[in-house]
């Protein structure tokens, strides 16, 4: 058998990436290419009174300056600007009119024959504003209820909290964060001689980009094609088409020329971000720590034009058993861009607060933090009133604790030290949804026996190319090098957004089903010949081994794929599958889970924190590729370290502007911050979640990490810092 699933195989796109041959959206060479550089607003709210573009246009090489005054026709209605990840409200329309909605908003696009000319000319565009008062401070804006469907309250949480023997009540805050993938957002729009557009875009869904720009600019089917073969990281920033693709398409249509727009790193802070949150947790428990009341109130930030919502509080009603739960979610609308899904959106925030509060409960009750969580384990998602299809969280606690050496922990804070360093151990649980989306894939077998499988999904570094190749190769019994997976192209069968950790499950299922359908096609083709060795066999009777279709019961009755394709008279045989979630799934709650154990070293005098050791035990169903999956979890842990200790986009409320908009001042972890990280994949079998039994690993690795670090910092220092990030000034 050719078994690929479960094997730690090297990435199939590895050789391209290590030789610099993988091409990203802003890297496609086009004859006669022009370069667009955006001019961004310097104030947060107002109107544009005048744009002075004369000096810019006088720069040699400048082709034009586009703005709301001279742009080509664009759709007016909000509906045309919605996309596959839209929030409620009126989506942002770049260069639409004279309104300034946030600081950093693109107001004009300078297009020139060279990048340098466009960059220079952009500095010469003068903007005269009518300034209006802005508000960017979440503390100074009256909130409104979020348009989100929260689980209904169950029991009477306030009453149960009031009479609980042990109470924890605490407020937690988290700052604005920006995705900052290494590749800035970029789009290269190739203007074809027939007026058609080929758009290379940095996106988590080529389909999303195509539909979006088609609606805005009134493009007909076939007028444009979007390609996105490689994406230099996204983490959610590519879930919505960003303004660079609108500007690039706009300029290409206006000028009838090819245009590239690449955002600067500074401009990467001028669209969506993880919203700032203020959270209040109330936990009531008996003396042994059994939860009797959970109240979780969330205030998130949003823009004036859209209500961004995510699942922040839900987790507090799902992760543990509790019969009295009340969840609340409000938004404060500010003069900023709409927040945007960012790695494990919502969960990473809500579970941070919940898991810190649980640590406070462990301290209050004297129950070990792991035991407390075991005691409150729930095999049922009480929000939904459904059992989990699988939830090997107890195994995560057990295996993680064992690897970490948790049993050696002295619960007393400040009980371990090494010279100037206080050492602390902390832990937390993590959770994420295991979703399944409709997806399509096509499998094509050529006469030489090679297989091409295709779906318009994306690989943002997650390993989609590799994992889909494994699934297809295994299903058709082919070695990896006989299989090619194609993605990131709107001419391919539709796929959902690449996000939410549902790509392996959704697209993987489609790939598997397309390959199974292809087997059926092969069998039917083979059986057209009355003398076929496979005559009379059903699909269940056959298997694919080494490029042959053969009878399970009698392997000698076999045909090569090549023979079957030749017999068909076509150069290839193909099959497509449109996979959908099965009804059986509706009876269950589905999710991935984690237990994260952290050791920190805190300099007692200087407040600096080093995360010296992390063990992350993950239950995410079947792991298709342990090598790429482990990498995902490691990355999630690094993100958790950044979230806990470093990341914060700072807003100057006088100016209404993010100010640390660079990679020098917006800190993300560097190599020296990362010490010993270990990942355990706990065995978890799940036939319900999808036919592959796989739950996805893109998000689960980050969830819980910040809380585990905060809890470890408390254990080290005795200080409970409830405001992220835990920078050294908060520990002095």
């Amino acid at each position: 058998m050719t078994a690929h699933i479960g094997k730690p195989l090297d990435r199939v796109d590895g050789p391209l990436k290590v030789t610099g041959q993988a091409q990203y959206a802003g890297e496609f060479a086009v004859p006669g290419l022009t370069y667009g550089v955006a001019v961004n607003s310097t104030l947060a709210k107002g109107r544009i009174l005048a744009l002075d573009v004369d000096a810019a246009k006088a720069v040699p090489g400048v082709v034009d300056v586009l703005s709301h005054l001279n742009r080509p026709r664009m759709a007016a209605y909000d509906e045309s600007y919605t996309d596959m990840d839209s929030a409620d409200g009126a989506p942002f329309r770049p260069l639409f009119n004279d309104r300034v909605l946030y600081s950093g908003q693109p107001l004009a696009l300078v297009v020139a024959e060279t990048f340098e000319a466009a960059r220079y000319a952009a500095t010469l565009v003068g903007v005269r504003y009518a300034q209006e008062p802005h508000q960017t401070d979440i503390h100074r804006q009256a909130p409104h209820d979020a348009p989100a469907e929260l689980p209904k309250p169950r029991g009477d949480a306030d009453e149960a909290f009031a009479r609980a023997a042990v109470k924890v009540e605490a407020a937690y805050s988290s700052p604005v964060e920006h995705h900052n993938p290494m590749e800035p957002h970029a789009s290269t729009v190739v203007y074809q001689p027939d007026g058609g557009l080929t758009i290379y875009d940095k996106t988590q869904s080529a389909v999303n980009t195509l539909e979006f720009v088609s609606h805005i600019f009134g493009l007909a089917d076939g007028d444009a094609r979007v390609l996105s073969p490689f994406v230099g990281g996204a983490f959610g920033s590519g879930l919505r088409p960003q303004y660079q693709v609108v500007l690039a398409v706009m300029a290409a249509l206006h000028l009838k020329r090819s245009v590239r727009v690449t955002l600067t790193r500074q401009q990467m802070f001028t669209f969506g971000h993880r919203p700032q949150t203020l959270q209040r947790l109330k936990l009531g428990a008996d003396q042994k720590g059994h939860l009797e009341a959970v109240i979780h109130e969330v205030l998130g930030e949003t823009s004036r034009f859209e209500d961004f919502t995510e699942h922040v509080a839900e987790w507090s009603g799902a992760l543990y058993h509790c019969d009295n739960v009340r969840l609340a979610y409000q938004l404060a609308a500010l003069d900023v861009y709409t927040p945007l899904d960012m790695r494990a959106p919502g969960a990473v925030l809500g579970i941070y607060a919940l898991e810190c509060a649980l640590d406070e409960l462990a301290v209050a009750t004297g129950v070990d933090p792991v035991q407390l969580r075991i005691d409150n384990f729930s095999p049922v998602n009480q929000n939904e009133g459904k059992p989990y299809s699988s939830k090997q969280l107890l195994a995560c606690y057990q295996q993680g604790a064992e690897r970490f050496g948790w049993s050696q922990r002295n619960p007393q804070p400040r009980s371990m030290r090494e010279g100037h360093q206080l050492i602390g151990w902390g832990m937390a649980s993590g959770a994420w949804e295991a979703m399944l989306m409709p997806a399509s894939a096509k499998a094509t077998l050529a006469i030489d026996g090679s297989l091409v499988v295709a779906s318009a999904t994306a690989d943002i570094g997650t390993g989609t190319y590799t994992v889909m190749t494994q699934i297809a190769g295994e299903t058709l019994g082919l070695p990896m090098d006989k299989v090619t997976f194609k993605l990131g192209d709107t001419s391919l069968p539709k796929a959902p957004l690449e996000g939410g950790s549902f790509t392996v499950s959704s697209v993987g299922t489609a790939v598997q089903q397309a390959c199974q359908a292809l087997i059926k096609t092969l069998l039917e083709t083979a059986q057209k010949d009355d003398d076929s060795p496979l005559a009379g066999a059903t699909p269940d009777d056959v298997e694919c081994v080494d490029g042959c279709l053969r009878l399970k019961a009698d392997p000698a009755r076999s045909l090569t794929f090549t023979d079957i394709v030749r017999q068909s008279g076509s150069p290839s045989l193909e099959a497509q599958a449109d996979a959908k979630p099965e009804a059986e799934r509706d009876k269950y709650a589905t999710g991935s889970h984690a237990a994260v154990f952290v050791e920190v070293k805190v300099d007692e005098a200087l407040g600096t924190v080093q995360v010296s050791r992390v063990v992350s035990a993950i239950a995410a169903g079947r792991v298709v590729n342990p090598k790429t999956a482990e990498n995902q979890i490691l990355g999630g842990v690094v993100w958790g370290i950044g979230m806990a200790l470093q990341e914060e986009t700072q807003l100057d409320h006088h100016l209404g502007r993010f100010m640390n908009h660079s990679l020098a001042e917006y800190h993300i972890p560097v190599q020296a911050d990362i010490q010993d990280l270990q990942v355990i994949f706990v065995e978890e079998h799940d036939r319900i979640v999808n036919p592959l039994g796989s739950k996805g690993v893109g998000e689960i690795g980050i969830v819980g990490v910040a809380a585990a670090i905060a809890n470890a910092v408390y254990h080290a220092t005795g200080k409970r810092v409830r405001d992220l990030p835990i920078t050294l000034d908060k520990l002095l």
Partner: protein
Amino acid sequence: MSATSPTAGAGLPAAHSISLTLNGQPRRLEVQPWTTLLDLLREQLQLTGSKKGCDHGQCGACTVLVNGKRINACLSLAVMQDGAEITTVEGLAEDGRLHPLQQAFIERDAFQCGYCTSGQLCSAVGLANEGRAHSRDEIRELMSGNLCRCGAYTNILAAIEDALPACREGGRS
């Protein structure tokens, strides 16, 4: 006064002619004074392996080797590289054979999205040439000029540890 010969441009300061060796090939190029080495590579020579992650020396994605030393190509003017020997990620493999670091990066899965990878590789070659990293912590510190937002640091470290002995033996740049 100037070692290069300016040529006339329309209303803008003059372009300059430079010679350099790029991935082993001698090249003679006309460059504007304000074109960075990185923009020269990416936009004019279509060598897009060197990446632009920040354009300000704050991420390391543009790291290339100049005369065997690692630098940030985004903060270097092309016109100032006259006479230099430059190696980019496209020049690391020899005769179709991957550099030991490239091979180790694949085997250790030392990347995800791949956008920082070229810079990590060139930086690691520079690190090997410098000969200053003798422990894990020293590699960590001396590779901290290369951000990886995917967070593949653990695997990057492992790959470099694996490949350093072969780099020393090979003495390749």
